[in-house]
C-alpha cells in the first residue's frame, strides 16, 4: 500500500518539502508492508490492552495548591501580549 504522505502530513500539521514527501513515501510504505504481517494473527476473542499493570481510573483529592506564576509559565515564549500567550487568529 502506498502511504499518502501529503494527506497525513496535513492531518499532523507537519510542513514538508517536496523532497521529504518523496523520501517519506518510500520509507513509510516499506514500514506499512512490514506490519502487514500482523494481519495473519488470529485475534478473535482477544481483548485489547491499553494499560499493562491493571490500573483503573484513579482520582486525586481536589485541593488548591501553589502552582507556577504567570511570569514563569510565559517565560519560554517570545509571543506574549499583556502577559498572555499570543496566538495566530483561529477564525481569520
Amino acid at each position, binding site marked *: 500500500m502506498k502511504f499518502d504522505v501529503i494527506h497525513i502530513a496535513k492531518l499532523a500539521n507537519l*510542513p514538508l518539502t517536496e523532497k521529504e514527501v518523496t523520501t517519506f513515501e518510500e*520509507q513509510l510504505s516499506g514500514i506499512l508492508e512490514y506490519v502487514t504481517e500482523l494481519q495473519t494473527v488470529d485475534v478473535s476473542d482477544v481483548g485489547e490492552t491499553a494499560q499493562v499493570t491493571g490500573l483503573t481510573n484513579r482520582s486525586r483529592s481536589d485541593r488548591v495548591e501553589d502552582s507556577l506564576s504567570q511570569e514563569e509559565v510565559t517565560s519560554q515564549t517570545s509571543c506574549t501580549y499583556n502577559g498572555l500567550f499570543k496566538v495566530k487568529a483561529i477564525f481569520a
Partner: protein
Amino acid sequence: MDFTRLTIAQVRKKLDRKEISSVELTKAYLERIGKLDRKLNAYITVTEKEALHTAKKADEKIAQGDASPLLGIPFSAKDMYLTKGIRTTAGSKVLENYIPQYSATVLEKMEHAGAVLVGKNNQDAWAHGASGEHSDFGPTKNPWNLAYIPGGSSSGPAVSVAADLASFAIATDTGGSIRQPASLCGITGLKPTYGRVSRYGVVAMASSFDTMGHFTRSVEDSALILSVTAGYDEHDATSSEKPVPHYASELKKNIKGLKIGMPKEYFTSGLDSNVSKTVKTAMHKLEELGAEIIPISLPHTQYGVGVYYILQTAEVSSNLARYDGIRYGNNRETFGDEAKRRIMLGTFVLAHGYYDAYYKRAMKIRTLIRQDFDIAFRKVDAIACPVSPTPAWKIGEKVSDPLAMYLADIFTVTANIAGIPGLAIPAGFAMGMPVGMQLLGPQFSEDILFRIGHQYQLTTDWHTRKPDLPV
C-alpha cells in the same frame, strides 16, 4: 588512584573515610568530560557551576556524618528529564533553547539524596532511535571503538557511564533505549516495571510504554539507584503504590534452585552467532551457580516490532502534537526526519478507516504477547536471552534504512509491550565489542533480576572491563 572508575558502592567508602571529597570527585569527572567529550559527544550541556555548588554542600553534610548512599556522587541525566533552570532539549532542535520551569520527580529525588548532576546527556531526538545517530546535536560515539554506534536512544547516558564521565546515569526505556546501549557499551542497564518509577517531568514519548531507568557499573549500584527512584508519585497517575522491596538485601541471596527460562524464539537464525555463543556461555554460568535452565516458548515474539511500531508511533503522534512553538520551543518545521516519520505513521494508524486494521489489532496482539509472558512465568522465575541481535554496528550503516533500525529492537520491545522489568548485564565480547545478556521477570520482580545479575557479577569480571581511551 583514579576514583572516576569506581562503582558507587566503592566510592561511597572513600567519601565517608574522607579519602576524597565530593568536590574533588566532581572535578575529576568534569576534567575527564573536558578531555574526552569532544570525541565522544555524550553531553549536550555540562553543568559545571551547579555541580560544584551541589558537591560543596554534599561535603558539608558528609563532614557532619551523613552517609546517605548517593550523597556527593556525580551523575548525569538523559536530556529527556526536565531540570529546573537548566536547558532541556530531548536531543531536538525544537527544544534547543527550552529552560524548564520545574524538575522531573526523579531529579528531585536525586537532589534530595544529595547526588551531583554534572550534565545533561546526548540522545536520539525524542528518544527515537537505536543508534544515537538521530540526535540534532550530532552522533555519540562508542568508547570501545569510535567508528561504531553506542546504541540508542540513551546513547549519551550509556557512554557517560562506560567512559567514566559520570558515576551513573538516569535515562528512559520505551522499547529498549536503556538495555540495548548498555549491552553495546558493556555496562549494566535497568528498565524497571511500568509504573515502578514516576514519569512526571520527563518528556513523554509513548506514555503506555515509557519507563524511567538507569545505567551503572554494577548490578549492586543499579539496585541502589532504584531504591531511591522507585515509588508512588501523586503527579503520575500510573505510578504504582506497591511497596518498594529492600533491594540491597535481596541481591545477596544465592540463586540455587531458581528456574530461568530460555525462550527458543530469541535464539533464531536472525541472532549473530557470536552473540548467541556469548549469551549461552553466560547462561551456563547461571547453571553453575545453581539455577535451573528451562526451555520455554514465547510464540508471539515475532510480532513484537510490528505491534510496537504501531502503538508507540500512535502515542508519539499524540504526545508530539503539543509542540506547536506557541508556549515554548520552536515550530514544527524544526522536527528531524525520524520524529516526522513517527508522527506520520502514528497519525496514519489512528486515522479514520485504518484504526481497526492497525491500531485496534495491534492492541489485541499486545494482549497475546502479555499472555505469552504470563504463561511462561507460571513455569519459571525469570528469563535469560540476548539484548541485541548483533553487537554495535558502524556509524552510518543503518541510518538511511528506518526499518533495519527498528528491527534492532526485536528482543527488547516485548518487555515494554508487557510492562515487565528487564536488566542488561555485560556477558562478554564479540569481535572486540561488548555483548550483554538480558534478564526478564514478571512485573515488579526487579529484586529477582538484581539477585541473578549480582550473583553473576560476583563470579565474572565482564562488568569491570574498561575501554582504552587516551586521556
